[in-house]
């Protein structure tokens, strides 16, 4: 299950979608909105996505993971977009494998690669301004 949504992410449903009777190990990464960033207090946050390409690239990342870890039984990636508050869930990656080491490695690969290639942009809003994260050197 690969999705991009402007609604709150149901983490429990995402995890359940990752579970499978053939797989004893589920690893999940949940990215939430921190109250501070680079020492500044964050008020809220906006995620903008290039929807069609973001979904396409998310599917590509999942396919790459499946090639590298053929024993993956389920892959769930859900990314939020729109305006988020502190503590809100921005992204969930959940995978299942028969044995646990593979679940950690595959989940970390997916979130690491997602952050490199998926066209989604985060704008942080502080009490005294805003920044597009990672835009400048």
């Amino acid at each position, binding site marked *: 299950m690969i999705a991009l949504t402007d609604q709150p992410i149901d983490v429990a449903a995402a995890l359940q979608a990752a579970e499978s009777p053939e797989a004893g190990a589920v690893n999940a990464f949940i990215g939430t909105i921190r109250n501070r960033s680079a020492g500044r207090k964050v008020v809220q946050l906006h995620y903008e996505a290039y929807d069609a390409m973001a979904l396409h690239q998310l599917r590509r990342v999942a396919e790459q993971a499946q090639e590298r870890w053929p024993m993956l039984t389920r892959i769930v990636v859900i990314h939020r977009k729109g305006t988020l508050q502190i503590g809100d869930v921005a992204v969930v990656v959940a995978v299942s494998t028969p044995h646990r080491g593979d679940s950690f490695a595959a989940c970390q690969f997916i979130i690491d690669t997602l*952050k490199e*290639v998926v*066209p989604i*942009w*985060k704008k942080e809003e502080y009490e005294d301004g805003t920044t*597009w994260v990672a*835009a*400048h050197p």
Partner: protein
Amino acid sequence: MNLTIALFGIAREVVGQSTLSLEMPPEQSVGDLLAHLRTSYPALNNLRSLAIAVNNEYAQPADRLHERDEIALIPPVSGG
């Protein structure tokens, strides 16, 4: 040929609009388009990276552009 370029994030703010319509000579490459945009909007040169996507894939500088391509300017991504 007429190219339509979708703009996102800080690139959209720099250019001041969410799509650009450009009339360019035929056989233009991705590199040509990037050079044109960097010249027209010098603030784009302050970004850590700048890529062109064609039909939902990252394109290489030598790739040729076609009028019906879905083109987007991709500033540094920060999802997750």
